[in-house]
């Protein structure tokens, strides 16, 4: 098979997209500045390779762009919609929930809605409270909707590939702050879309997605190397929805101590959903109550958002407390 070279997170996304377009002439791209000028870099070169009919620069009409994707799905096409940043999903909310996610249900399975909405999380780009948000919570409880939040290049690549095989819309919350991170893509996962153990460990498990999973690995590595070492497993959800209940329950049982970390406030997102799931275990299954590390109930400033977000340090501190 040869070597498995490191690929950046951004290139991994670009590669999965390119491959899907090459494989299926009915895959096409909608977005702003996705053509000759690729604003985020992910669609670079696609217009030259696949033509302007399949790589379409759009007006500032995200609601219609998603609706167009749903309409195209009714005729067997798969649209990949690039949203400038995740906060903008708000203006497309109705199209995502009502037009796309409900299509299969409302038509009783007559029509399906494969559709991918790429919505980069823009945190640390200094865009302020309307330009840096994670936005997972808005969609977490909407049925028939997949949500991916890749933590590294391999997850990004395989989850995006997997999304093309799904009969439902996927919100693909890639994280711009991870764009330059890199790693090998590895072999095709046997069960794509399942949670992944980023790092084994027996004393506790951190469950997280996206950048928080990456930070949790840093925190766990640091704790393993510290003077009072701890052996912490990190479970990366990758695809947050459908939630990999089985993997979560298995990891929780095995470690007995669970820390969930998310960047959003504590009243929604995968954090409380996982805690709710863990309540289905008998009380004796865990050694401690599961803990949630989340940001306080506040929006994100453009300056010093890191002050309110979990960091490798606060993750480690929360783990120490859990292990105490």
């Amino acid at each position, binding site marked *: 098979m040869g070597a498995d070279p490191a690929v950046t997170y951004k290139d991994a996304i670009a590669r999965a997209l390119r491959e899907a377009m090459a494989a299926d002439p*009915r895959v*096409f791209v909608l977005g702003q500045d996705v053509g000759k000028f690729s604003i985020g870099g992910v669609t670079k070169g696609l217009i030259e390779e696949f033509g302007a*009919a*399949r790589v*379409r620069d*759009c*007006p500032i*009409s995200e*609601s*219609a*762009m*998603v*609706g*167009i*994707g*749903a*309409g*195209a*799905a*009714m*005729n*067997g*096409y798969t*649209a990949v919609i690039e949203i400038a940043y995740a906060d903008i999903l708000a203006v497309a909310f*109705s*199209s995502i929930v*009502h*037009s796309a996610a409900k*299509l299969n*249900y*409302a*038509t*009783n399975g*007559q*029509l399906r809605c494969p559709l991918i909405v790429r919505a980069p999380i823009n945190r640390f780009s200094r865009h302020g409270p309307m330009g840096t948000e994670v936005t997972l919570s808005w969609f977490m409880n909407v049925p028939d909707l997949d949500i991916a939040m890749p933590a590294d290049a391999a997850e990004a690549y395989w989850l995006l590939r997997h999304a093309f095989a799904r009969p439902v819309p996927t919100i693909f919350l890639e994280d711009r702050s991870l764009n330059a991170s890199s790693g090998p893509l590895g072999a095709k996962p046997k069960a794509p879309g399942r949670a992944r153990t980023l790092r084994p460990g027996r004393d506790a498990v951190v469950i997280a997605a996206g950048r928080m999973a990456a930070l949790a690995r840093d925190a766990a590595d640091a704790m393993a190397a510290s003077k009072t070492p701890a052996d912490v497993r990190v479970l990366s959800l990758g695809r947050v929805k459908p939630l990999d209940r089985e993997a979560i329950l298995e990891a929780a049982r095995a470690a007995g101590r669970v820390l969930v970390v998310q960047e959003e406030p504590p009243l929604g997102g995968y954090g409380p959903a996982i805690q709710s799931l863990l309540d289905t275990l008998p009380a004796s299954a865990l050694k401690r109550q599961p803990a949630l590390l989340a940001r306080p109930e506040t929006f994100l400033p453009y300056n010093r958002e890191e002050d309110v977000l979990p960091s490798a340090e606060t993750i480690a501190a929360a783990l120490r407390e859990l292990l105490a």
Partner: protein
Amino acid sequence: MNTRPQRRNDVPPGAEPVEFLRLMWRTRLFEEFSMRLKKEGAVLGNTYPCLGQEALGVAALALAAGDAVFPSYRSRAIVFGKGATVEQHFREMIGAPEAEQGGREVFHHAAFPGIGVMPSSSMIGGWAPTAAGYALTQQMERSGTVTVCVIGDGSLGAGDLHEALNIAGTWKLPFVLMVENNGYQVSAAWSQVRAQKALAPYVAPYGFVTRPVDGNNAFDVFHSMAWARAEALAGRPAMLDCETYRMGGYSSHFGEPRSGIEGELAAWRARDPIAFVEDWLERHGGMARREIAAVRAAEAQAIAAAWEKAKREAPRRAGDARR
């Protein structure tokens, strides 16, 4: 199916005015029948009758089988025109598991994709983007077919409509916007919710060719859709601003919400779209009054029979959690 533009009011080859009449009676009698069913508690779904707007349905007869229609909730006529049956409708209204939507979506948003009847949305304006998306795929495949998006005039307020029209116009999609312009949005007269009654001035700048249509004149509706279809296929998205009037309540769950409309009602009653075609058939179509009356009778009978059949074949009793 003749899709080239015709002189208005001509009877085009391939479309018989008697077919117009059949479709219009089917529509009206179905609306009346289903309002009665709802009143008697025999069905669950609310109805949004298109009484007085039946002529809009003949637009479907100017379309090809591969053309798609994204109807509004008040588009019974065009849905029948595309070939959906009364019996299918009854099954949906009962909410039978055997129905295409399986009791999930309401009958006035029912989709029958096999015959080109596509889903609507409960969000007013929300199906304009999906219709544009469908039209985009028709353009990409060079299929020679068009998508018709039917909206009520109240949709003018909805941002989604504008986003979709701007894109459809800019991309020159094979897209026809058909407006059921009845001048009301539930209780609000058009002047309360926009600056001018016609929607064409709003739509033309997006890159649409537009045409005012007498929505109570089946001939005008038919020819206009044939024209619009040809325009849209030639890269000129088209808009039909069909002026008409709702001759009854907004829906079966509200009484008539408008007040002071007696004059309007009288004026529009004189423009009854069915009487218009019946007169034409008698004067120019060589049909006797008796033959004309038989059209209505046959539709009435078919509707009653379809109800009996739907009831029998979809025996599961409608649930009602409130009682």
